């Protein structure tokens, strides 16, 4: 038989002024199962809590209902009090008779009547409450950072600094990401390499950090504190442990017509290569698509082999195979970054027809001292000095058709101002035009920076759209545009056109999100757990977001978010175990159909399926596919409980029968 204690709080006069608390306590004392019903000035006070504790002990209460302020206020207080008296804390229910009764009503009679009904509902519910125990699950003290750009590097460094092992998985041959390709950074115009490469070195030298370059995450299983990831180390045909990065192999390689990916194909490199001078790890990699020996198919054939001959360390290994590493992690940070979009759909800009129409990232390389032209800005087509350069903004950004992206790529306005300024600084004879829709400069010193470009460097900013870019036979490029302010059609004979290309999440992000059971928006940016309050966490517990994989960001923002993600991960890794929310869903396997509806609506990937054997009444067995909920991952939203047609899914603390009992009590 239930023994329920009801405790009605006056909250001074907050409740008592509008609700006849004595009448409420009296009325509720007659409810089925209620053995004690009291009122008190302040239930949340120590004396009030003691009243509850004593009642639990003396009456052997099986449930407690406190009619008081909002459960958002003191539910925890009363749960703790119950626990202190030996009652499971989840056998406490709150009837909110302050915020949702006394404070909003004026008439004592009706407010009291309503308070009684709310009390009844809480009593009806508590009768069906079951003791719940928060489970615990251990935390593996190691983090996985996916992506080795500035975001990944910063996150890894911060986590390592806190004393935890970190693995960086980078799909390219070196870490560094996009920042390594950038020439200067806005708004300070300091050299990107100068600030990035020390960080790369730091990462490589940190004992806690393991860098898996030229590697991919091929599988992730598990849940917060307890992930298992499989990392595929792609074969680079060079033994990383032996290679000294001397570069001798790259010099002897006879196949020198490989488009240099690091320079975005603006020049060539060898089939065996080190991406750039400060690459980390500084290890050579052989591109099997171009290597004369590997392209043959049979490495035992006597073809080329010059690099192996040149390598004094004996690091070249044509027989190398992909290697798979399985590792346990407590936390995963996604830092997969971005890429400029492909411009195949933007024929109007003649990008594919004309070598002198370049993207902004290509311009970075063209202007970089380590770039193809050693830092001198020359037209890619004829290596001449350009005198007139047109920048086109929002190429593929803020598009309302399917060609581009609906969002603002955020960084273009600023880097274009930077490019314009740098060009005008270095080549005062070069005229620079910028066609823009708006110039967006929210950020510290950003607007000043842009104004400097316009005012000091006389960059021609024209509000308008570029309609068509046409390469002309004389090597010039006709840029046809409209000036929206003067409403004029313009034709500019440009030497170069630079397209501020929209950025998009890396292509590896979506398969990764599937593996991680994290959510993505329609643009493939990872979705944060809460747009405002949990901006660096994914909705899936234990998976954090760093950098542009979550949305377009500039470097300082990326670094800030990287550190934030790191601190969140550290917060998780310092725990030996995590307490799970006991108000989670659970599946009744006898009723489960295995239809997967619950799995489809679970935002956390907390539901998995297994084939289980069930006994039939005839002493035979049948195999059935049934769902099971991982309580460490489930957050208790209840979406699955409604998606489940058979009602096999139910939610602890808010079970079907509990909610229906409340409905019944209210409608009684």
């Amino acid at each position, binding site marked *: 038989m239930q023994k329920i204690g009801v405790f009605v709080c006056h909250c001074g006069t907050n409740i008592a002024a509008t609700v006849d608390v004595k009448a409420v306590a009296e009325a509720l004392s007659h409810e089925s199962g209620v053995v004690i019903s009291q009122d008190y000035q302040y239930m949340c006070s120590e004396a009030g809590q003691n009243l509850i504790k004593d009642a639990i002990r003396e009456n052997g209460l099986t449930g407690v209902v406190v009619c008081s302020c909002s459960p958002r206020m003191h539910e925890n207080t009363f749960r703790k009090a119950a626990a202190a008296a030996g009652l499971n804390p989840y056998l406490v229910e709150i009837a909110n008779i302050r915020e949702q009764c006394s404070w909003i009503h004026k008439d004592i009679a009706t407010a009291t009547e309503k308070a009684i009904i709310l009390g009844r509902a809480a009593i009806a519910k508590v009768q069906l409450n079951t003791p719940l125990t928060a489970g615990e699950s251990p935390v593996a003290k190691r983090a996985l950072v996916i992506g080795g750009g500035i975001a990944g590097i910063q996150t890894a460094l911060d986590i390592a600094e806190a004393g935890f092992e970190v693995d960086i998985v980078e799909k390219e041959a070196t870490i560094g990401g996009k920042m390594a390709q950038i020439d200067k950074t806005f708004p300070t115009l300091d050299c990107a390499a100068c600030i990035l490469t020390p960080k790369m070195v730091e990462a490589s030298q940190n004992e806690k950090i393991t860098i898996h370059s030229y590697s991919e995450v091929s599988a992730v299983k598990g849940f917060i504190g307890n992930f298992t990831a499989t990392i595929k180390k792609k074969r680079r045909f060079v033994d990383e442990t032996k290679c000294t990065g001397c570069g001798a192999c790259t010099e002897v390689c006879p196949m020198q017509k490989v488009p240099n990916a690091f320079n975005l194909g603006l020049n060539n490199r060898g089939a065996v290569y080190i991406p750039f001078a400060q690459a980390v790890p500084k290890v050579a990699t052989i591109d099997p698509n171009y290597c004369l020996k590997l392209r043959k198919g049979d490495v035992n054939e006597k073809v080329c082999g010059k690099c192996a001959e040149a390598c004094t360390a004996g690091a070249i290994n044509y027989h190398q195979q992909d290697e798979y590493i399985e590792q346990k992690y407590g936390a995963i940070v996604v830092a997969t970054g971005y890429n400029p979009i492909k411009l195949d759909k933007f024929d109007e800009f003649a990008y594919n027809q004309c070598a002198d129409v370049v993207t902004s990232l290509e311009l970075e390389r063209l202007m970089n001292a380590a770039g193809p032209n050693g830092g001198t800005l020359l037209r890619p087509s004829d290596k001449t000095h350009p005198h007139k350069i047109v920048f086109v903004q929002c190429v593929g950004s803020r598009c309302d058709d399917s060609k581009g992206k609906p969002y603002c790529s955020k960084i273009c306005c600023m880097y274009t101002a930077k490019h314009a300024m740098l060009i005008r600084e270095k080549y005062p004879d070069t005229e620079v035009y910028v066609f823009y829709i708006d110039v967006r400069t929210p950020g510290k010193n950003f607007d000043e920076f842009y104004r400097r470009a316009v005012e000091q460097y006389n960059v021609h900013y024209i509000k308008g759209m570029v309609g068509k870019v046409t390469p002309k036979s004389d090597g010039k490029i006709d840029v046809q545009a409209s000036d929206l302010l003067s409403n004029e059609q313009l034709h500019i004979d440009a030497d170069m056109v630079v397209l501020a290309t929209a950025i998009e999440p890396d292509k590896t992000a979506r398969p990764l999100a599937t593996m991680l059971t994290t959510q993505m928006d*329609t643009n493939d940016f990872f979705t944060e757990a809460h747009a405002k309050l949990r901006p660096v966490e994914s909705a899936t517990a234990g998976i954090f977001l760093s950098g542009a994989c979550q949305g377009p960001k500039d470097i300082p923002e990326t670094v800030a978010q990287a550190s934030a993600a790191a601190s969140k991960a550290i917060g998780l890794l310092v725990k030996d175990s995590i307490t799970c929310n006991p108000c989670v869903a659970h599946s009744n396997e*006898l*009723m*489960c*159909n*295995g*239809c*997967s*509806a619950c799995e*489809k*609506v679970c935002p956390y990937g907390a539901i998995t*399926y297994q084939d289980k054997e069930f006994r039939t009444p005839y002493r035979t067995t*049948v*195999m*059935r*596919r049934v769902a099971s909920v991982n309580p460490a991952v489930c957050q208790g939203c209840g979406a699955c409980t409604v*998606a489940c*047609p*058979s*009602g*096999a899914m139910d939610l602890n603390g808010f079970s*079907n*029968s509990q909610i*229906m009992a409340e409905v019944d009590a209210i409608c009684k």
Partner: protein
Amino acid sequence: MQEAIISRAKQLLADGTVNRVIGWKRGEFAYDITPAIFESPEEIDADFVYDDFTSANVSKYLVKESRKEGKILAFLKTCDTYSLNQLTKEHRVDRDNIYVVGIPSDGKLDVEKIKAKGITGITGVERNGDILTVKTIYGDETMSVADAMSNKCLSCKSKKHVTYDELIGEDGEVTDTNRFDMVEKLENMTSQERYDFWRNELSKCIRCNACRNVCPACTCENCVFNNPDSGVENKAAADSFEENMFHIIRAFHVAGRCTDCGECSRVCPQNIPLHLLNRKFIKDINSLYGEYQAGADTTSKAPLNNYTFDDCEASIVHERGVE
């Protein structure tokens, strides 16, 4: 057609592809055909039938049958293949253990419609083009085939088999139908008229559960209406509320999963147009969330297990025309 099917069934049994066949067995009269499982060529020769009255959708039996030892041969009409696909998607059948032969259907007849014409004592039915001759102990009667056509076939949504291992006959296309006409007509009534319409219909319900038990989407291990803990368990409607509730919940549970096979209305002993409830959901889903045909594939997310950021708000219901 029947000959082709029978001979193929016997072949597949003989060559060991399958060890049994699910199809239809002839009855006492021309029309009382029972789904049945055949294990030998003799049984097939004796009783297998495929004719104007083999309207039963046998896909639901495969939930149980596909888990048994050995592969089963299922002859599926176009609409039945949608049901099977949906079951496959929901992991309710072991598709690998089923050999599906798609068979064409040019529309099945509904004996209830013949009887509704006042024709009784039926001993045989002959279809000659558009004319149906019903032989009775009181003499022959004729009527148009269209008048005897089962409702589900009158608004056939597709002549295309969406899953099969082989086909007998030609495959058709997904067709445009008038299947939402009646839903639309009801939508255009006033709320009171709709209420009266449904009260009249649903008050006929005897809660025999035929609609649920025949429904290929209703394959729950334990139906909520049988589960005392579900809060909706009941065996008979003791109040008009319970009549409404049963049908709302039944339709809601198959919303986005119902392939519109029409079995519920076909088997209803009280001739309640239950399919209209399902079609209302289908129509809503199509118009609000984009065209969706349950069972057309085995991978798409059901509309109720899916969303887009810019779905309409529930208030759209309030904004519709007539109250």
